């Protein structure tokens, strides 16, 4: 019941709030806030009721909708609700000046809350998929909210990535269901056991294919390379509260799906681990580089999201790889790091995007040069943004530090384990493979540290640009400095409140308790955060970051007193590859193939091609004086016959139309006194005429068909009675 209220309550709440909001705007806002607050309360209660489950049979085919509560699910349900409360508090002020389409936006925001909770609490992949599709489509309305052409174009991108991701996921689920016979998380791992390709823990090819499709499907929402294209476009276009949710929660929905697949479907398959690792590393590095180059506040944050998702995916990959060699402790380290980074990133992006929202609602622009120096006297905003920046960069004492350290430790442990496996040659994994994986992980560690450094660099870029440097135009700077309060009390409370999490979760005891609750493993409690070794990784990252900021950002990307975007525009996967592929290349090939057969006017092309084929066949016989002419002339004759047939049909129809079925002019004189018989006759004639007009042609076709039949029957009879 509790679960049902959390999942389906927002659907009803959305409708109710929309209805109230239509009458009285203020009341509508309160209603929306009330709904989110109630959901938050309920999820907190849920957190105390782990083990609860709910099955709604009869909906959809098969097992129906199933939900359950575990530590991790409960934690994420609460985080989701917190995000919604935060953004709902912030929304009224943000939208104070643009009332258009606001009702639609609010309705779909609340509606999506239910769908997200549905995914987070789902106990089988089918339920997750259903709610996943729902939230994909409802969140589309966030992206196109402003209905400018840029927003609509971003919306197109978003929608097509969502739909394509959904279909890939769909295919993956079909394959998985076909292989395992179930989609329930609890039953999947047992159902797949013993179905492996051989004695080792590798899954059969079909399951691996299913896993990759599911990875791509959920990855599309998570912003995983190569389906990340929507992230940098959708975020600048969407309203800031929506960006916070898109980046903070919707990407996590995708990650949630990948994590569940990694844990329950392909837990011990190192091939899957390697694929996720590759995707994660590329996403991590590419996102960070894109963020560094970007000169748009929200685009930077969006690319940063992508990069952080890369960190999380790397954590998942290490979890899978360690599962493959059966190292439980290393699995738990990586898993804890993954979960913690998910939580951290949600809350971080909540704060940062709300800060960006404050900038937008005051200045209506996001370009760094234009907002430079604006925040010099905005203390509250400065603190919140600084906390966010420190958190995401992984500075000790803030939340990002713990999760990144856990992830880093996971990678280091994994390298260690793989090196050992290389020497001792385990059953599950060959020595060479282990060696290769270890090398790859080593590269991964470097990329990890380097990306961490880039994170620090681009956050420095943002922070110094907005809050420290002066605008290049002195008049503008003066106006900025003299501007008063930039936000009202509620928004300040929301932003500062959310930024407090950076500090709270930066304290190891709190985080450890939380992780213990989420993962249920006591291993994490022994984790020591501030050892010199752990500090070293962070220090390396921060040093790289500082160097990059001073050398690259200030020297290369900052020219003639303005930030420049040096990222080549042609390196855009969407414009360069996906759009042409989807709209031109693939249909082009299919159309080319189709047009060979497609434009058929029944007989003529068949004849033409038949003739050509026969001629080429005849050419094989070459000098044959008999066969060649027979082939050629026979087909020419056939062609002429076809032509004659069609000509005669047409002339027959023409003749009939001009003789028997000629349209007679109706005498208009005595319409009133028209005899009943005549009316009947003309009515019938009118009704029958179209049939008769087409009849001759059809009759001819029938005759031809019957001729064919007779011919074949004759052959058949001869065959039976030789």
């Amino acid at each position, binding site marked *: 019941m509790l679960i049902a209220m959390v999942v389906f309550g927002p659907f009803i709440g959305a409708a109710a709030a929309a209805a109230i909001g239509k009458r009285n705007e203020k009341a509508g806002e309160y209603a929306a806030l009330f709904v989110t607050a109630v959901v938050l309360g309920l999820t907190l209660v849920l957190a105390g009721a782990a083990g609860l489950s709910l099955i709604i049979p009869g909906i959809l085919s098969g097992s129906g909708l199933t939900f359950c509560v575990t530590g991790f699910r409960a934690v994420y349900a609460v985080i989701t609700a917190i995000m919604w409360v935060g953004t709902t508090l912030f929304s009224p002020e943000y939208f104070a000046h643009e009332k258009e389409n606001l009702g639609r936006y609010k309705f779909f925001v609340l509606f999506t809350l239910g769908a997200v909770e549905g995914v987070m609490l789902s106990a089988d992949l089918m339920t997750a998929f259903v709610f996943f599709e729902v939230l994909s489509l409802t969140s589309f309305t966030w992206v196109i909210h402003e209905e400018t052409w840029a927003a609509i174009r971003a919306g197109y991108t978003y929608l097509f990535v969502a739909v394509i991701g959904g279909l890939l996921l769909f295919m993956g689920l079909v394959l998985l269901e076909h292989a395992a016979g179930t989609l329930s998380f609890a039953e999947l791992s047992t159902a797949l056991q013993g179905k492996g390709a051989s004695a080792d823990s590798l899954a059969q090819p079909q399951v691996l294919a299913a896993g990759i499709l599911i990875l791509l499907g959920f990855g599309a929402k998570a912003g995983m390379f190569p389906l990340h294209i929507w992230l940098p476009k959708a975020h600048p276009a969407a309203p800031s509260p929506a960006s916070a949710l898109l980046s903070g929660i919707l990407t996590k929905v995708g990650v949630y799906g990948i994590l569940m697949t990694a844990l329950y479907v392909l837990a011990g398959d190192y091939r899957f681990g390697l694929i996720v690792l590759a995707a994660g590393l590329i996403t991590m590095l590419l996102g960070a580089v894109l963020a560094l180059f970007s000169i748009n506040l929200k685009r930077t944050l969006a690319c940063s999201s992508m990069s952080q998702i890369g960190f999380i995916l790397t954590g998942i990959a290490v979890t899978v790889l360690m599962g493959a060699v059966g190292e439980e402790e290393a699995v738990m380290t990586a898993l804890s790091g993954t979960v913690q980074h998910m939580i951290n990133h949600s809350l971080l992006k909540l704060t940062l995007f709300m800060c960006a929202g404050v900038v937008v609602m005051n200045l209506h622009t996001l370009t760094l040069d234009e907002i430079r120096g604006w925040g010099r006297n905005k203390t509250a905003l400065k603190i919140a943004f600084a906390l966010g920046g420190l958190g995401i960069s992984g500075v000790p004492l803030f939340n990002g530090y713990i999760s990144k350290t856990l992830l880093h430790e996971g990678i280091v442990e994994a390298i260690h384990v793989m090196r050992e496996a290389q020497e001792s040659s385990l059953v599950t994994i060959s020595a060479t493979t282990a060696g290769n994986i270890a090398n790859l992980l080593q590269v991964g560690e470097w990329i990890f540290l380097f990306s961490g450094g880039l994170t620090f660099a681009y956050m420095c870029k943002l922070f110094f640009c907005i809050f420290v440097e002066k605008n290049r135009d002195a008049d503008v700077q003066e106006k900025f400095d003299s501007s008063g309060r930039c936000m009202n009390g509620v928004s300040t409370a929301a932003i500062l409140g959310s930024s407090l999490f950076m500090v709270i979760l930066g304290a190891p005891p709190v985080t450890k308790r939380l992780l213990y609750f989420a993962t249920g493993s006591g291993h994490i409690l022994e984790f020591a955060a501030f050892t010199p070794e752990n500090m070293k990784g962070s220090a390396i990252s921060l040093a790289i970051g500082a160097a990059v900021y001073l050398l690259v950002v200030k020297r290369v990307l900052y020219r003639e007193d303005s930030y420049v975007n040096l990222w080549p525009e042609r390196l855009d996967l969407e414009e360069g590859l996906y759009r042409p592929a989807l709209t031109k290349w693939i249909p082009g090939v299919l159309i080319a193939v189709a047009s060979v057969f497609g434009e058929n006017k029944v007989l003529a092309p068949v004849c033409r091609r038949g003739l050509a084929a026969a001629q080429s066949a005849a050419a094989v016989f070459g000098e044959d004086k008999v066969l060649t002419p027979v082939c050629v002339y026979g087909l020419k004759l056939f062609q002429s016959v076809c032509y004659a047939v069609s000509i005669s049909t047409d002339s027959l129809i023409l003749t009939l139309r001009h003789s028997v079925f000629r349209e007679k002019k109706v005498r208009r004189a005595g319409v009133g006194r028209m005899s009943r018989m005549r*009316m009947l006759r003309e009515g019938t004639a009118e009704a029958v005429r179209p049939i008769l007009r087409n009849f001759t042609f059809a009759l001819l076709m029938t005759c031809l068909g019957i001729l064919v*039949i007779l011919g074949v029957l004759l052959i058949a009879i001869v065959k039976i009675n030789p």
Partner: protein
Amino acid sequence: MNPLFLLIPIVLPIFGGLALLIRPVENDIKRRILCEAVACVTSACVWAAALWMPHRPVTVYSFTRGFAVNFGVDGMANVFAVMISIMWPLVLLYAFEYMKGDEGSNRFFAFYVMTYGVTLGVCYSADMITMYVFIEMLTLVTIPLVTHYGGHESMFAGRKYAAYTIGGASLGFMAVVLTTMYGMDGIFRYGGSIFEVLDSGTMQLAFVLGFIGFGAKAAVFPLHDWLPTASVAPTPVTALLHAVAVVNSGVFAVMRMTYYVFGADYLRGTAAQAICLSLAIFSLLFGAVQALRERHFKRRLAYSTMSNLSYMLLAAMCMTPQGLKAGLAHMVFHGVIKICLFMCAGAFIHRARKAYIYEINGIGRRMPDTFAAYTLCALSLTGIPPLCGFVSKWQLLTAGMDAATEAAAGGAAGGTVSAILPYILFAGVAALIIAAFLCAMYSINISIRAFFPVEEKDLYKDSDVKEAGPLMLIPIYVFAACNILAGMFPGPILEILTAIGEGRL
């Protein structure tokens, strides 16, 4: 219940239509009441037959031995009959408003009602010959509907339609003759009734010809071209006949022939199966691509219909019980979706007097309800849960996968054909997904255009185009609601279809 009761739903609409032809009713209201009454009574008879009729064929009239008119109900007939019996009265309401003020209304509604009876004839016929006769009749009865507007384009469409479907049916006739001669008696029995007298090659040829022939009605390549051309017909005709009744009778006939005359076991693993599968795969991709290319609203939907009909045939050609089930499921659910899509398109054409997709920009603001329903159905067609298109697509894919793995497992024993078959089936599954991508692009694109004008060109900012009237909207609402309901609770329908697929009903 007297088995001859079955004649009532077949004959009543035919006579009703004839009566309207012979004694035209000039009063609009009277004609509406008459048509609606005939349709409703017929539908009631269909439901009565579905509920209480024993499942065995009845000979109505016997010409000679082996050549008789047989009717009967069974599960498959009921599914098709009940589906159209729900649709017909509702779409008639839509047609009343759409055809308001048209001069040829009498003729139109006469044939429209007659088509109902003939389609039921296809449903209830219990042997090949009867079915063949009704399929031919169906063509003849619907020609005046296609040519209704009477212009050059309509006449051409009518001629093309006749040529393709009658010509195709004459190919099908060969299958009819051969199965009647070398089968037991041509009466439908689950599992087929072919004696192994004739060599299998000829029978396979007969099957392929029958597939192409009856498939012509289902717009299977190479006899597909009539369907897009025929979309010049009034929208009630395209919606009900060229998206559901006529085209599904083609699919229905192919399914009957495959599972009830030849028998799936007889055909599984043969070259005939491979050829028919390839044809279906090709036409489903071809239809989807053409739909993407097409700029005309109704023609795009027509191509999409072509693609979706081939989904059903693809499933049916898997030659497994799940295949039949999936094909029937898609027949029902696609019917619900596509009829609604066409009605929305018709409402747009009727109100805005425009027909092309680039003329849609911004119409969503003027006709919000119509295009909301359109969007819902477009999503459903793509296969988004929890709408009904998802359910049938899931069935199709799992059926395809099952058949493919089965074929792969049994393929080692057979010759070349059975070695190729699994690949064709896997290709079919892949083609389904590709077609779904294309479907997302061509169908959702329209609703985005409608609500969020492309490149900020809102064509209807200052126009006075109004939302469609209630008679048009009611059926649209009903079918859109069916989409959600059938998607959320497909259990009972799927259970019935499973029973049919396994030959238990």
